[in-house]
């Protein structure tokens, strides 16, 4: 019985993240537009975009290889699996034994590797610039992310996300400066990884400084739909990760009754809305950085992660 319930929760989560990801992006865009006193597109616009793109024909460059055609599916699959492993409304997921934080980072890293390859594949100058910058950002963001994982794993005694979320939700954690530093570092990494404003502008195709959009410039039709959906899933994933690690209140424990799952779902929706609003507020109140200042920004995240790990050695365990 418990197996069936866990399987149902897992399936519900897979569908939920897929269904919510475009809504979250639409919500962030709407809030941003409202903050600029514009009306903004309706909340369901990202769904419409994806459906429209799915209907359109694919236009391929003459020299595109098979890899170019396969990559959107690889990226989408990797991101979807990663997003469905992060606990959202409950920790009792069927595959939570495999939801290791390092595995999730590896999934996202492989997705990024393929995206960078796709940017290089056709051989346009823009794709090359985009790939080189993406890899530069990733090479700084990933060590920072691993330091954050070390910090959390040292605190919780496990790298498994469901165990971590359960431990952090319990009161035994106490007040720890390392966790605060890890949270700030994780937010900085999330901003960089999702190509949000101080690092990259997600709303333009026209800037010379663009990173993510430069790599996917050659994609069209259903390929572009999948890549867009994967980007939206990634944003949802990072917000869920921050929510389940640092504001885990309300999340349903394993083998919880359906009412607890419902409470978890409501709490999750509220967390998503709050994080989306804060993201939009942050993005409207800050200017984009020069590309060559990004290493400093991510270096600060790496420094925070390192410091958080170091400070743990002189904490309560003395």
């Amino acid at each position: 019985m418990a197996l069936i319930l866990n399987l149902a929760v897992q399936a519900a989560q897979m569908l939920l993240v897929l269904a919510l990801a475009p809504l979250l992006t639409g919500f962030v865009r709407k809030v941003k537009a409202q903050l600029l006193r514009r009306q903004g597109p309706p909340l369901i616009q990202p769904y419409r975009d994806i459906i429209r793109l799915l209907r359109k024909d694919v236009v391929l460059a003459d020299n595109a290889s098979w890899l170019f055609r396969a990559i959107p599916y690889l990226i989408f699959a990797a991101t979807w699996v990663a997003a469905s492993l992060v606990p959202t409304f409950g920790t009792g997921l069927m595959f939570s034994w495999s939801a290791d934080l390092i595995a999730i980072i590896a999934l996202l890293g492989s997705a990024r590797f393929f995206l960078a390859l796709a940017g290089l594949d056709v051989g346009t100058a823009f794709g090359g610039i985009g790939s080189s910058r993406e890899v530069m950002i990733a090479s700084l963001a990933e060590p920072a992310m691993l330091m954050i994982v070390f910090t959390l794993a040292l605190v919780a005694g496990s790298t498994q996300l469901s165990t971590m979320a359960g431990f952090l939700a319990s009161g035994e954690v106490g007040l720890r400066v390392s966790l605060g530093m890890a949270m700030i570092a994780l937010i900085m990494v999330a901003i960089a990884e999702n190509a949000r404003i101080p690092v990259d502008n997600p709303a333009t195709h026209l800037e010379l400084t663009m990173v993510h959009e430069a790599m996917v410039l050659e994609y069209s039709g259903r390929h572009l739909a999948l890549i867009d959906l994967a980007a939206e899933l990634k944003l949802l994933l990072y917000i869920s990760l921050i929510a389940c690690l640092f504001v885990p209140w309300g999340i349903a424990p394993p083998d919880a009754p359906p009412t607890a799952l419902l409470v978890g779902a409501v709490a999750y929706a509220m967390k998503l809305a709050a994080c989306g609003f804060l993201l939009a507020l942050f993005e409207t109140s800050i200017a984009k950085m020069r590309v060559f200042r990004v290493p400093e920004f991510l270096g600060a995240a790496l420094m925070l992660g390192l410091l958080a790990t170091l400070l743990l050695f002189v904490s309560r365990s003395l």
Partner: protein
Amino acid sequence: MHGLSFDIAHLLAGSLVLVSFMLLYQDRLYALLNIYALHALVLALAVASQAYVQDAPHLYITAAIALVFKAIVIPIALHRMIVKLGIHREIETVVGIGPTMLLGIGLVALSMVVILRVTTEADPLAREDLAFALSVVLLGLLMMVTRRNVVSQVVGFMSLENGLVLAATGAKGMPFVVEISVAFSILIAFIVIGIFLFRIRERFDTVDVHALDRFRGERL
């Protein structure tokens, strides 16, 4: 005693180390002074919490000195000095920010290794405080070494002194006279440095210490 009070002491001392890193990261003079004021404020909070935990009322006076002199008077005085000297431009750093940060992390790790090895029998609160205090001192020294501008060297010196105060409050039974005399000697040092700053400026038209090296005939 363990539990929450330890966590709060850890939080404040850890934040002090973090603010030291923010001082290292900052490359504008005004922002540097604001962060120095924050540094002193965090120190005052840490000392006050130690006073509460150790039930030592004289530490409240140390906290008040930190709050009034270091968080308010010295930053305002330095601010005025900067305006008078006409140097609101960026700080030149000798090494880049990235390597400096890494060096700083290395120093924090070093101080933890040293202190945790040496003080295995001491009270955990004192051990933790000493480890953080030594890192703040080393970070202040690092800041004095890597900066060329005299004003930011002064800020590095002051942050170093904050680390000393943290160490003094962590060790139980440090006589109050010692703390008071340290605080006032720092104040005197600040005044002397301030006067020297204007003399250097008068003489060389800059507060970059490399001008002094050049004047002595050293090769750069």
